[in-house]
């Protein structure tokens, strides 16, 4: 039983969920994820570990409220429980090395990168944290992250992505003031992963992305999360979720994430209608 300790709306569309999960907390490593089943009818969905407390035996998940499963999670109340929580899953990325690490996160990825910032700084590496958000109102955990980041930069939509500004130029500026950056790690929505890693690899920087494809079991059993890197197929759940951005088949990744888009919309409409009827 994984009881809910806390549900907190961090920003308008992002939630923090704290769950009782002593065994997962005991084994968690930065960069790993868990599979969560919201309720008895629920789907198994992967969510990155944003934090954990080994003494209290809890894990923190930050997620975007987007579909039925995340709606259900966001609606949980303390004292209730999720149907299931399994993990930690995926390979923890290798963080040994020299030079600074640029952690670039948007959306749930800001939270998901926090444990990496902590571990990297504890290991003595310089951390440059770049938080991407729609606007300042969508930024969270700034103070928490700053404790483990030598630099904290922000990137808002007006500065990039949709604005026509060249992300590569922006990134080049970051590197100019932090010439020791030897590794870029990106977590967040697919579009951010794609745009940022295109810019970073374009500058010749080694770039790791945390992929978030559709998964079912999360233990390498089903192959739903197939991704292609340099023409070879990998299972993101057990071979990843971290992959070198260079050589990744982005088009395939975008396509496969949308495999059930029609059903997801159908389910969401049904869920919202039912929720509406309950409140009537």
């Amino acid at each position, binding site marked *: 039983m994984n009881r809910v300790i806390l549900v907190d709306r961090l920003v308008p569309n992002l939630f923090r969920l704290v769950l009782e999960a002593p065994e997962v907390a005991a084994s968690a490593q930065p960069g790993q994820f868990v599979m969560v089943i919201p309720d008895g009818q629920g*789907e*198994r969905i992967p969510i990155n570990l944003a934090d954990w407390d080994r003494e209290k035996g809890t894990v923190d998940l930050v997620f975007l409220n987007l579909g039925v499963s995340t709606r259900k999670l966001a609606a949980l109340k303390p004292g209730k429980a999720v149907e299931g929580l*399994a993990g930690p899953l995926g390979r923890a990325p290798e963080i040994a090395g020299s030079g600074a690490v640029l952690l670039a996160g948007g959306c749930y990825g800001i939270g998901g990168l926090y444990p990496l910032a902590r571990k990297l700084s504890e290991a003595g590496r310089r951390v440059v944290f770049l938080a991407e958000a729609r606007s300042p109102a969508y930024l969270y955990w700034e103070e928490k992250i700053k404790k483990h980041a030598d630099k904290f930069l922000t990137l808002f939509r007006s500065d990039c992505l949709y604005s026509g500004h060249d992300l590569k130029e922006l990134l080049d500026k970051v590197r100019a003031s932090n010439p020791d950056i030897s590794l870029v790690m990106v977590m967040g929505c697919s579009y951010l992963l794609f745009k940022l890693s295109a810019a970073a690899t374009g500058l010749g920087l080694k770039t790791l992305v945390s992929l978030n494809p559709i998964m*079912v079991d999360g233990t390498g059993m089903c192959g*739903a999360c*197939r991704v292609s890197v340099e023409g070879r*197929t990998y299972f993101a759940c057990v071979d990843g979720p971290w992959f070198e951005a260079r050589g990744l088949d982005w088009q395939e990744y975008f396509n496969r994430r949308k495999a059930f888009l029609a059903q997801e919309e159908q*389910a969401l409409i049904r869920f919202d209608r039912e929720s509406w009827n309950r409140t009537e």
Partner: protein
Amino acid sequence: MNGIDRLEPGQAERLLREREKDWRKALRRELSVQKRMAIDRQPMPEQEPGVRIRNFKEVNLGYNLELAREEARRCLDCGSPGCVAGCPVAIDIPTFIKYIEAGELERSLEKIRETNGLPAICGRVCPQEVQCEKDCNLVRAGKAPVAIGHLERFVADYLCLREGTGPRLSFSPESFRRPEKIAVVGSGPGGLTAAADLARLGYQVTVFEALHLPGGVLAYGIPEFRLPREILQSEINFIKALGVEIKTNFIVGRTASLEDLVRAGYRAFFLGTGAGLPAFMNIPGENLLGVYSANEYLTRVNLMKGFRFPEFDTPVPRARKAAVIGGGNVAMDAVRTALRLGAEQATVYYRRSRAEMPARLEEVKHAEEEGIVFNFLTVPVRFLGNDRGELKGMVLQRLALGEPDSSGRPRPVPIPGSEFEVEVDLAVVAIGQSPNPLLIKQLPGLKLGRWGNVEVDFQTMATNLPGIFAGGDAVRGGATVILAMGDGRRAARAMDEFLTRS
């Protein structure tokens, strides 16, 4: 060869002792051999094909008492029963059948349970035609074999489900506790059998299951129309009643390592981690939307109840033209699932011919009755997609059978220039699976075979690491439920010896 020669030491004598009991002698005299042989095999009542392709309810409805006793009368109670030797867990088949004939159903179930912890499941999913029923002496007389599987299923269902009394225990698990803790990794048929046997021996057994429901392949792989979930639940309840603890959502190798479990006091391990690594064909277009591993397709439907979407949240692809590649039970399960999910056409493509299909006879028969199309000696060479990356068709190649390969089956040889194209919007790859490497690759020094399978001594199921035993598909690749159970049974015995010795 006389079947009885293949039995384990002591087994033939035990069989004979049972056979010479007075009630058995009396029962044999009740009906002459001629009259017994004149009875036809009782057909299994089934849902009509036209009805069952619209639901996920079990196809076989099961014998009633009358049918079961009539079928039981067909068993000649012969002196050298080939059936027992053909059974991987050596159930005393004549005795349980004769108890049915005598109407002593509880004794019958007790007899089965002596060697088989999951009779309701084995009666449904075992390939009886190549095991017990193959060596039935009626076959030698030119008759259909006794429907041993149907009878096994009947006894288990009759007592565990219909009477609603649940399984009864002939001993109290608390009475002879042993202090040693044992970890069983994986709650499939191998793990559950090992756990049940070890619990009967008094050990404290914990089964660790990575998924949120126990049963392994019985839960995620085998569809409800072959194995209703209340049957599985009833068998799992029986194992829990023996004192076995099942921890779900616990991935040994991630949630805790094997060393963590050693530190937590576990003294011996059974690795029943299954064949959870799906094989793909490595042909162009395999990552298109609409191409699934059988594991994913069946897990979405069975474990996640996707066939009840949107009531359940997990979606499943709904196809118009479904193609399943492979010729085993998994392929039959997948193609019949596609049909039930509304496919206008559901087709099997198998690279060998009908004779080489590894699927159970009954599954093939059911599939054909349901209108599944079989294409033999064909194999896909590439999948075709549209600009959104969605599967639209596939290119197939015809094959001919050549010389036997290492498996003893004729090797399929491509016929040049025989390529042709078909339109499909769902392709399920069911060409086999290999052992899930998640845990076994983490154990330094564990000896693995060339397919990544755990190497064991098949007498004891011991791996090369002391205290670590393994069985089922983790050892065999994609095999059967009953072989996994046989492994679990032998491992339990050897683990008991290991712990008693050390």
